[in-house]
């Protein structure tokens, strides 16, 4: 079957149109708006939900192999130091110790508190930790800087003496990468611009200028980073890893130990969260794979290395902070120019950009420039975290738009409607505003402000932008139709928690017209065939089309078999209820048909071709189809105590065809909760004089709990994009991008004054209200003053 053309009914539901799409060879006809599906798109509960809820699901943390040893890592207590000497001899004599590894060598320079120094494997975890105390390391301490503002200063201690290699993973947004040459600790990132922001600003009637500050956020997955390594011979190993990228673990282990990739098997049956930090065999700031593999080789036993909570905060990645100087202006009441200059720190790592929000969303604004910079500090490396850069960028640009709107006397929603041109997002703004009660709520906020009420309420809105990064040829799916009628789908994808396994089962049930209970999914194992990492909101859009193609191929083979059994031409075979085949005046049930399979099973494999089309065709803001989303938030602020509660969020999102509304809503809920937490409480605190993290736990590193979660309403604007044969695009990242920004805008609406620094704590609200006695805070209204050395520049 060669390339062919099909006419599909595509677009935003309510604005559908017929589009001719060219399909590559072997590609199933895409499910468009006219497709009548019975399983896909229905709220199927997670097929593994009972295992998770009952504790029978086994995570990497639960893996226990015969003879397995436990590893622990000695980490640098100094933010900057040279290793003078390291002596592991005493440690190796401690009870239970089977192997000791000096990871750092004399002369090595350690660049953050938490960096690998040495490691031990012992029979019991407490023996391994005890032995660490018997490793003698002499350090020569060096000057350091851990705060972003301090690191920019001319005489700041230099973090890196050589050029820094950029570390990118599948969690990073595809596209612009790289950076300019560093000067001191500052490394410019690629600039994005259109028009002339400087000239544009000069032409404006009204200009708003302010600096917006966001904190370092840590991923804080409930399951920490870690893995179990077992050597299966001198040149082969099996690795159980808590990872969102099985194949990235395989490739890195193969590279570290000089193995062939196919001789490294990686298993992730269940995983307890990743949020972008779990790609590869190393954690971003710790060589976990190397350490576990070396210890295992030396001890000749399987080794388990799982980080503790402290390690998880200091050396396994984080969302970089940002300090964004925004100039935004309007001409004749319309957004005319935006200029953002951002500095942020990813510690010793790279990637402190601020996303595409300023340039990609309000595309009617003719003059935009975004200049971002990595600032190196002696802190654990940043890494991709759910929509890298975007929540930071959204916070600054959206709150700046609201502040400009206030100066103009224009409703901030109207300013957005006039500046955006994405057809789906415009619809989301309008429909969402109606559902949310935007106009009435804005009036209520103004009345409360006017009366000087003690408890204020406010509402805000913000938008998201994210591309459809569905990948071609990355996932190879295998489907086996067994003689007993079971349909087995196999792919090496890991389920990060989004529910991909359930969705794959739905695809199988849909194509074969069979009950879900007869579909079995084999996953979470590199042996089940290539797949993508769970990053960039691309899992569903990359894997489901491959699975569907494989299913369709197997069903075509079944049709041949049916034709033979029914003694009719294969074109005459029709599929009915529960997969019954009809033709030539007769019929055969699916089970009967499968019994006729010659051999064990019908097996088909397939992949997913390049994205072949998109509707709507115009998607301003990027090269790929741009997934649209907006969120409305409502807050309540106690002006006596400064306490902000997020009371309600309406999340309006596009994610292409909805595969499963239940798992989708869970993803959106998770994104909103993460964003609420980022808005109101999360912040990594480093002591600037000690260079140590003060809140490396889940007690004073605060994450929203049940009572902090707003009432979340999810509204889906379904689009049939015609991008791939299932119509799936991503939702993981978009769901968290606008939340914090919308909450910050709502606080602005409630108070009439902006809090320009996240998290929006009582301290910052009281400062914004001018209630804090003593000398006024220097600079802008954002009260970084509330924590004099809180690490925010």
């Amino acid at each position, binding site marked *: 079957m060669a390339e062919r053309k099909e006419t599909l009914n595509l677009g935003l539901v309510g604005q559908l149109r017929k589009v001719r799409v060219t399909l590559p060879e072997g590609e199933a006809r895409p499910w468009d708006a006219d497709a009548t599906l019975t399983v896909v798109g229905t709220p199927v509960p997670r097929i593994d939900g009972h295992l998770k809820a009952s504790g029978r699901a086994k995570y990497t943390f639960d893996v226990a192999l015969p003879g397995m040893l436990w590893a622990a890592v000695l980490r640098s*207590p100094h933010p900057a130091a040279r290793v003078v000497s390291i002596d592991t001899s005493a440690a190796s004599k401690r009870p239970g110790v089977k192997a000791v590894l000096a990871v750092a060598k004399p002369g090595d320079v350690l660049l953050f508190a938490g960096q690998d120094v040495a490691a031990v494997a012992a029979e019991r975890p*407490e023996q391994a930790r*005890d032995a660490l105390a018997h490793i003698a390391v002499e350090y020569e301490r060096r000057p350091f800087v851990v705060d972003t503002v301090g690191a920019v200063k001319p005489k700041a201690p230099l973090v890196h003496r050589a050029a820094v290699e950029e570390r990118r993973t599948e969690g990073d947004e595809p596209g612009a990468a790289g950076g300019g040459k560093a000067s001191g600790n500052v490394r410019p990132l690629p600039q994005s611009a259109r028009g002339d922001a400087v000239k544009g600003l000069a032409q404006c009637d009204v200009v708003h200028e302010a600096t917006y500050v966001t904190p370092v956020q840590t991923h804080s997955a409930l399951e920490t980073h870690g893995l179990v390594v077992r050597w299966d011979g001198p040149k082969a190993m099996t690795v159980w890893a808590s990872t969102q990228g099985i194949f990235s673990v395989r490739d890195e282990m193969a590279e570290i130990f000089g193995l062939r990739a196919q001789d490294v098997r990686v298993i992730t049956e269940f995983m307890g969260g990743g949020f972008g930090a779990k790609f590869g065999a190393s954690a971003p700031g710790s060589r976990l794979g190397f350490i576990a593999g070396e210890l295992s080789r030396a001890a000749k036993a399987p080794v388990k290395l799982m980080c503790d909570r402290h390690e998880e905060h200091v050396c396994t990645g984080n969302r970089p902070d940002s300090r964004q100087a925004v100039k935004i202006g309007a001409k004749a009441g319309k957004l005319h120019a935006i200029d953002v200059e951002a500095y942020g720190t990813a510690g010793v790592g790279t990637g402190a950009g601020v996303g595409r929000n300023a340039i990609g969303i309000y595309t009617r604004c003719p003059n935009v420039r975004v200049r971002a910079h990595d600032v190196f500090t002696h802190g654990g490396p940043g890494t991709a975290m759910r929509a890298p850069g975007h929540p930071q960028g959204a916070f600054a640009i959206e709150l700046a738009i609201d502040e400009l709107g206030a100066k103009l006397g224009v409703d901030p929603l109207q300013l957005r409607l006039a500046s955006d041109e994405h057809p789906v997002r415009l619809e989301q703004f309008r429909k969402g505003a109606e559902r949310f009660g935007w106009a009435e709520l804005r009036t209520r906020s103004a009345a*409360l402000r006017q*009366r000087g*009420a*003690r*408890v204020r309420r406010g509402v805000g809105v913000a938008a998201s932008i994210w591309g459809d990064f569905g990948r071609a040829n990355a996932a190879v799916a295998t489907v086996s139709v067994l003689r007993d009628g079971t349909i087995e789908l196999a792919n090496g994808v890991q389920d990060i928690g989004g529910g991909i396994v359930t969705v794959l089962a739905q695809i199988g049930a849909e194509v074969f017209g069979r009950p879900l209970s007869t579909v079995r999914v084999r996953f979470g194992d590199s042996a089940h065939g290539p797949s993508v990492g769970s990053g960039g909101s691309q899992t569903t859009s990359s894997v489901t089309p491959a699975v569907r193609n494989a299913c369709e191929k197997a069903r075509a083979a079944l049709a041949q078999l049916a034709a033979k059994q029914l003694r009719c031409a294969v074109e005459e075979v029709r599929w009915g209820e529960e997969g019954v085949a009809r033709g030539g005046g007769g019929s055969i049930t699916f089970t009967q048909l499968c019994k006729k399979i010659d051999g064990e099973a019908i097996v088909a494999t397939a992949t997913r071709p390049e994205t072949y089309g998109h509707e709507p065709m115009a998607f301003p803001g990027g090269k790929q189809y741009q997934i649209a989303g907006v969120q409305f938030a409502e807050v309540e602020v*106690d*002006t*006596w*105590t*400064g*306490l902000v*509660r997020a009371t309600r969020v309406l999340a309006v999102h596009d994610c292409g065809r909805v595969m499963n509304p239940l798992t989708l809503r869970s993803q959106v809920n998770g994104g909103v909760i993460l964003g609420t937490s980022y808005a*109101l*409480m999360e912040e990594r*605190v480093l*002591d600037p*004089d*000690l260079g*140590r993290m*003060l*809140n490396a736990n889940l*007690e*004073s590193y*605060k*994450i*929203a*709990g*049940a*009572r*902090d979660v707003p009432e979340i309403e999810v509204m889906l604007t379904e689009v049939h994009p015609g991008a791939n044969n299932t119509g799936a695009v991503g939702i993981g990242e978009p769901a968290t991008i606008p939340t914090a920004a919308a909450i910050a805008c709502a606080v602005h609406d409630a108070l009439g004054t902006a809090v320009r620094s996240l*998290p929006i*704590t*009582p*301290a910052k609200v*009281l*400062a914004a209200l001018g*209630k*804090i*006695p*003593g000398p006024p805070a220097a600079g802008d209204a954002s*009260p970084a*003053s*509330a*924590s*004099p*050395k*809180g*690490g925010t520049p």
Partner: protein
Amino acid sequence: MNRFSIVRLPTLEAAAARVAGGDGRVLRAGGIDLIDHMKEGLVAPDELVELHAVGGDEGRLLRGVETEGDGSLRVGALVTLAQLADASTLPAGLRALGQAAGQAATPGIRNAATVGGNLLQRPRCWYYRHVDLVCLKKGGDMCLAQTGDHRYHAILGGGPSYIVHASSLASALCALDARVQVLSPGNKARELPIEQLFVGPTVDPTREHVLQPGEILLAVHLPAPAAGQRSAYAAVQEKQSQDWPLAEASVRLRIDGGRLRDVRVGLGHVAPVPWRAREAEAVLEGQAPTAELFARAAEAATSPAKPLPGNAYKVPLVQGLLREVLHDAAGVPLPE
């Protein structure tokens, strides 16, 4: 965490003797703060002597909430926060104590955490809790919070240590004029006012209470509520599910002839000890309850405050909180 033994002894005398008889032996009640310390590597006891193993009359007293002949209430040291938070446990005039117990931690912790453990727990200061850092409280020569990040630290009574006392029950018990009963070596019991249980940093920055090794806190004794007594407690937290308060306020009062009487105000998480706000009490006593009066009292409460550069926000915050609690306790509706 190192290996340790659990020792169960049936009498207080035996438990006290066991603990006094060797290093590395500690009493365990709910074990909340103790296990935290062990997990964080701050202490490594060899033996945990279980107070829960104490039986007989002693055990009943430790676990009981009993009204005595004079109407006073004796709350055993092993009574859990969950029991206290149960509205049926306490008379209406002692509501502040139930509110404080119900606000603390999580349902799971409240089911295990005890009154005694809550009062004797160590501070949550992030310098103190960091295993690698040696602060004044751990025998170092300076309070690292004073020049460091002290957003959660003391604005009242600070120096040379700036911790805030962690107990949520303590501020309520100060407002309710409670006393504590302590068993001293030789099986002698003594009773002291709640405020005297605590040690400020000028006396000894390495400890927070006066109990000597071998002494055991037995119970909290609350005077009988006066006719018409009301009380209220509230806290402000950055996070509403399981967080340590930024500040707490507890108030006890009664209204007689339209005037406030017997006013006591306790503040929590603003000072190294549970803080009695006598300046606020003086403003309130004998006055008619009004919103304006409460605002003045709240200002008076913080008049001795000496915030550090990074925690001045706690001054208006605790003022706002105290106003809200005064409105609640006196039954004066809060403004919109």
